[in-house]
């Protein structure tokens, strides 16, 4: 391997584009969660399903050499305050994330997709 054969930066068209991903995430959330009510039995499987769906969706975007991490959190809306933050140790130049929130009367769902560039 040559010394400098590493691909340090993704090409622009292959960059992780939060706007697109966000749209996709939201579409998935909308599809999956419209008219859904919070059901503690169902939610664990639902989150997994959503996460998978988001992952496949995002993969279709063809962000080359990106490792994806998808996090989905579904919580019940009962009037309590919820605060959720993310903090990443990464290369901010290449890595990014997109996040979307879906809320209806009975639940809220936060889905975040993190894209980490594999050098």
């Amino acid at each position, binding site marked *: 391997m040559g010394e400098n054969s590493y691909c340090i930066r993704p090409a622009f068209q292959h960059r992780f584009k939060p706007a697109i991903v966000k749209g996709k995430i939201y579409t998935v959330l909308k599809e999956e969660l419209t008219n859904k009510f919070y059901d503690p039995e169902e939610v664990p499987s639902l989150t997994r399903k959503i996460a998978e769906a988001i992952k496949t969706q995002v993969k279709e975007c063809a962000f080359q050499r990106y490792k994806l991490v998808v996090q989905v959190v579904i919580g019940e809306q009962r*009037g309590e305050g*919820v*605060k*959720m933050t*993310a903090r990443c140790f990464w290369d901010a130049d290449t890595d990014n994330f997109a996040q979307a*929130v879906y809320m209806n009367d009975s639940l809220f769902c936060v889905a975040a997709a993190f894209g980490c560039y594999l050098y």
Partner: protein
Amino acid sequence: MKPSKGKTKEDTWKTEELLKHIKAAQGDHPDHRDKKNRVEKRHKEEESEDRRHRGRDRDRQGDQDNDKVRSKGRESDGDLGHGKVHKKVKNEERDKVRGKEKESEKRKDRDGGNYKERDKRSGRRVHDEDEEWDFNIERSTKRGYESERNRDKERERRKEKIKSLESGRENDGNDDQRTKHWQKEDKGNLELSKHDKHEEKERRRRERKEKEGRKAESNEEGKEKKRRSSDVRDDDYERRHRERKDHELHDGRREKRQKDRQETGLEINVEEIDKKWRDKKVKESKEDKRKHQYKEIKDSDREREHKKREKRDWERREGQERNHRRKKEMDEQERQGEGSKEESGRRTREHLPEFTDESGLKGATDQEKHAGTLLEELVEGEEIGIEIKTAFESTNYEDDFEDYEDDFEEDECEVEEEEKEQEKEEIPAQQRAEIEAIQKAITAENEKICATWMRNNQVTYVEEPKKVEDSRSRGPVRGTCIDFVAAKQREINSKVACKQKKRSAELLRLIDLDFSVTFSMLDLPPLNEYDVYIKSFGRTNTKQAFVQSNEDDVDQEIQTDEIETVDKWTQHPGEGNLVCGGENLSDTFSSDSLIKNIDTQRLTNFLRSACQVIAVLLEEDEAENQANKNIQSKAASLSVSDGCSQLNTNLPFLNGREVLCLHFSQAQRQTLLSVHSFPKEPGVVKLVSNYIICIWNIWEPSFPQKVLICESEVQCCCFGPGDALSVFAGTVDGSVVAWDLRDCSNIHYNLQIGEQEWTFRLPTFTTDGVQTAVNHSCAVKAIDPVSSPTYDNCIGLSLLTSQQGSSGLTFQLASLDESGLLNLWVVIELPKADLAGSLTDLGLIPGGKMKLIHSSSIDVISFLPRNLMEMCRPQTLSIKFMPTDSNHFFIGTDIGLVSHGTRHGLQVAPRLYKPETDGTRPVQVTCIDFCHFGKTMFLVGCSDGTIRLHSVTKECPILQWNESTRGSPIQNMLWALTRPGMFFVLDTASHIYVWDLLQDVSKPVSEEILQPDRITTMDILGNPEKPNASSGLMLAKQSGTIEMQYLQKKWSGPHLNELETLHYLLQKTV
């Protein structure tokens, strides 16, 4: 899978085993051998194990169903091997001293399977050879793997070369002999081996595991074991390979075959060449030594020892090689190039005891047997070659070898003494010590390395220390399996990991990782109570109902008294008799309220006019009383008058002021204005710097109706045309000033003088300083309202109309200055007064309601002929509008001419009215006055005393009187209002001339001289529509008094056909 030769191998192995057994039987301790072999328990297993060994390589890749069985075997093997090795290393001497039987028994005691194992091992060795053979056959398939190995081997070989050079003891020449022996054994074993074929696979597997176990053990126990274990597999392969090549040196055929089989790449070829070279050297060195030894040990029993020696020799050589290789491999693995030399040294030492006598024996056997064995070899041909090779390869299994060695040693006990001596002889004490030291060091080193290495191999490391102490006490614990795939995997993994590490190290230099800002994924504030409520209950289809609890119904005490309240109502304007009411009181006032149906507007109108009348009546009454005294005392001073009265100008603010102008209102004949100049001496009041204009009602002479003040000198003054409610004045500085007499008094200057409070009205509007573009820039000489005939007609209604809508008050005003600029203004009344003042009309007094808007400007001089203009620009002094047609105006100039102009429309003739004598003279036209009766004639008075009577239609005057005033300038000239042919002339000499054209056309009827008080100006009172009403001359005197001279009836009363007579007369005179 097995090649055809597999069987032959098996056979050979069996023969070998058999041979061994035979040998054992023949040797010093045949019992032992037999015992071992005969141990019923595991005999079968062992044999099967051997077979297993054979197929091991193959099975390695095969299924692992038999793991359990294998592990069992392995364990036993491991124990055995361990014990053996241990024995060899530590108790070499002791073992030798001890009888074989003892040892075996001990072993049995300690570890049930030992004797078994030994047999096994002996078989195994052979079996390994077989295996090797198999391996060779299969190698083509495993070439890839081998090629890797070969590289390692190459390295090892290089080291080995060096070692071999150093040690130089071993002789490849022995190989041939050895092989023969093996061969024999194999043959012997042939039958034995066959009977357990069905168990082969299992055993093989077990064997494999055993090896692994052994490996592990060896690591723990010391260098030998280490050596053995470190890379059993690799070792085996390499060894086999090398040995094969060695054989090749001796046997071309074999070599060929091998080559065919191997078909290894370049590397292998190179290796081969290397090996050859190496082997040669090794052989040479070994042979030399052996020869030397041989001489010394001639006595020994060759027959018996021959085999032993062979074995030993073989063993030793193999061991050596193995050790070297192992060590090298170890070194390689650990990437430590160090210990090769040391090892070689150590090894030499290790093997020295054996070597010394064995080599001697070997040398002897070699030499003796060489001739015979060679033949055998040749006869046996290929097979032998193969077997030899396999035999060599069999040494892979160190345990086997070791075991064998042990046995050998036991056999050797007789020769012990010799060996020792030989050792001592051959190796100097110093060297030995050195070697020992090195050995120790190496051991330590190896242990260390092994410790680390073993961890990876998952060997039961914990148990190892014990075993090091007493290898024989170790039970069948070594049950670990050498998982080659896993090992390989590990290696790959470690390589990959290494690569990744390197990669990451390189990348991390280029990349900055950081804790990016914390992303807020969700921030959902807690809902407050109401939101929750609404959320749960505020949906559609649910109804919210509120019920009031009594919580907020609170009583609080207050200490104030109750306020009495009564309801009342009122209505304005009242639509019925009842305009106000309320409980209780409505009854009491109901009777009164019936009366109150009043039209307030009508009432005010009535009161205003009525109070004027009453005021006049009261004034007259008072005046009559006074007149009885004053007027009579003041007898009529004029011949034409029958009485006179004075206006009360004896007011503090009028003291010392000369009356410059008197002017009666055309609409209200009794209303008079008087213009008072600056006082001659400073008066009591502060109005010194102001001109004062007083508005009088002549019937209320005691005080002026209104007092107006102006800060500038007033040149001319006039009333508004329709009524006496507005006054206009032109000032010497070119401004036009207007007063609205209806102004509320409180916006003006109120001054308490004496007991009376006077309101001094400031101009409501002034053009002073505004509209500078169009305003007059020099003294305004004349100002005159443009009265329209329509307006005249509604004079009678003026009171009402002005009351009704003051906004109807619009008319035009003309102001003429000296330079001939005639400005026309529109006087408008504002609908609403603004006490705050106007932002746009800067000339408007705050609260004022009347303003002037500039309408148009006419340059009057332009009406004069050009030839007059050439001399100098004439001044314009006065202006009069024709009473019947306000479109026409007549302007008096300072050149004796009267110019005729129109406000709009074409120029009309005559443009000029000239005196009889042609040409222009510097004569000012001081006054122009129109006859009030139908005829359009006017009088022109000039500063040279000339009086001209003009007809509007003719340029030249009808009549001209030049010397009527004896040259004194005409001051004022007024037509009488009641009689057409009569007019009054006032000259500057204060003479009043009364003309009556009906009586005398050539000269005045009478001349009055009022002395000593000079008359400054006069105006005439009278009403043309009411000829019988009183008429008189209002005279203003220099002293400031204003005097009314009532004309006698004979002068004021109209005569019959007077106007016709006048016309006739005039026509006659013309």
